[in-house]
């Protein structure tokens, strides 16, 4: 690694050194409380799979490059110099951690592993060593924002092609499209993913509630956040923010995608509209009596996986229970659940990167937790979790059906009695 590159990486590192991040790097007492909290460690007890183990890879660089005692007597803190070899450790810190933040809730100092991980991700981008697939996906999203006019007509046509499937779940009111797009003065902008499974159930539910809504042209997921690039994260979100402002909506509802929700809700600063997860929207409709669901339509025993970015890191937990109480008479909680729920093991970009062998190995504890419920249906509210849980279901022969909350709700909609 030449001096110019080292200088650039040092600059990137410094750009993340807020007061809080410095505290996270300096305050660790190596007490080890966080170690068993990580699903990867619980599945495969090796120190490198623990929060503190991963953080040390970055902490040792910090001592060397940002602390005088690290420069003068590096051996004291095992300080290390930035180097090509050490970048492999940095990669391990960035991409064996899902950013689930379960460890944070156990650390007596609240040391935020995800903030330390974000330094690792930024250094990898600076060194051109980040997973190319994540950068490719982020660039695609940005290019889509620049060319939206060129594809509006074909996208609208494809969405219209889904209307029959929406109406099969819930007829829409006369004179209203089953999937409205570009509705000026809509109250709610719904931001889906590319797949129809994230559009049809939500459309049926919103139509049943008589919502004045509009479907976004853009996908909710933010690969800028997965790869840890702050500028791209902002650009990708900005497409949706601009659309929401143009339509004058009061609320932006993010589909069942944990990262998309967390980024829009907590990382975009003050916005001229409310940001909610679609889970909150469904719970609100039930609370206000705007939709009814028949619990007899979900007869099998059901359990629910709290997606880390919606529950622990997003605060949406009881809303899911409100929905579940309407949805079934045979609900069993995962143990532990809510803030303490085990991560599915697929976050932080791992699903998009493939990494199946590691994902399955590091989430053994998740599979065991799910199996212990004896449930037949495993519901969740995040695309990423859904994919990972489906892979675990197959890999560990759990014999369950993995389902989105919105899908279960839309299948059980009934007219008010």
């Amino acid at each position, binding site marked *: 690694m030449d001096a110019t590159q080292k200088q650039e990486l040092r600059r990137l590192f410094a750009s993340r050194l807020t007061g809080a991040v410095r505290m996270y790097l300096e305050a660790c007492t190596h007490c080890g409380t966080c170690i068993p909290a990580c699903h990867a460690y619980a599945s495969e007890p090796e120190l490198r799979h623990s929060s503190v183990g991963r953080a040390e890879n970055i902490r040792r660089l910090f001592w060397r490059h940002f602390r005088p005692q690290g420069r003068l007597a590096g051996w004291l803190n095992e300080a290390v110099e930035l180097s090509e070899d050490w970048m492999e450790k940095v990669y391990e810190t960035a991409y064996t951690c899902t950013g689930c933040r379960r460890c944070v809730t156990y650390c007596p100092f609240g040391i935020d592993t995800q903030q330390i991980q974000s330094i690792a991700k930024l250094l990898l981008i600076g060194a051109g060593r980040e997973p190319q697939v994540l950068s490719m*996906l982020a660039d695609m999203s940005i290019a889509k924002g620049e060319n939206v006019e060129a594809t509006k007509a074909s996208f609208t046509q494809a969405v219209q092609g889904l209307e029959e499937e929406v109406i099969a779940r819930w007829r829409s009111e006369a004179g209203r499209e089953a999937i409205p797009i570009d509705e000026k003065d809509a109250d709610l902008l719904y931001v889906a993913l590319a797949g129809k499974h994230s559009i049809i159930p939500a459309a049926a539910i919103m139509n049943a509630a008589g919502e004045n809504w509009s479907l976004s042209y853009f996908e909710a997921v933010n690969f800028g956040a997965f790869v840890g690039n702050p500028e791209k994260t902002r650009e990708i979100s900005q497409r949706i923010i601009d659309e929401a402002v143009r339509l004058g909506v009061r609320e932006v509802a993010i589909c069942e995608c944990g990262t998309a929700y967390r980024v829009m809700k907590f990382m975009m600063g003050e916005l001229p509209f409310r940001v909610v997860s679609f889970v909150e929207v469904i719970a609100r409709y039930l609370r206000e009596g705007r939709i009814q669901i028949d619990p007899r339509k979900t007869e099998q025993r059901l359990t629910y996986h709290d997606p880390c970015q919606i529950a622990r890191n997003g605060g949406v937990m009881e809303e899911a229970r409100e929905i579940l109480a309407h949805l079934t008479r045979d609900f069993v909680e995962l143990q532990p659940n809510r803030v303490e729920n085990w991560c599915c093991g697929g976050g932080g970009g791992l699903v998009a990167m493939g990494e199946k062998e590691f994902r399955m190995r590091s989430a053994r504890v998740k599979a065991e937790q799910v199996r212990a419920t004896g449930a037949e249906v495993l519901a969740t509210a995040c695309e990423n979790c859904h994919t990972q849980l489906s892979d675990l279901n197959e890999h560990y022969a759990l014999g369950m059906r993995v389902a989105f909350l919105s899908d279960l709700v839309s299948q059980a909609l009934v007219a008010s009695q």
Partner: protein
Amino acid sequence: MGDYSIAKTLDYKGLPCPMPVVKISQDIGSVDVGEVIEVLTTDPGSLADFPAWAKTSGNEILETQQDEGTIHIFVRRVK
């Protein structure tokens, strides 16, 4: 349909996010430069995602067609 032959048809129907784009970025390498892949999908978002991917990866979307719920995307490998 334009005047070209299809080297391969790939079925991406029902794949979760972001697999259609991840798969095309891998599968494009399985045909020669100049050859065309037909992708079948049911994702409305692919109609915007694939042109954006083509622009950033330097490939070409020749056309898209929609019939009875299936979307056909014709991708030419350029590089």
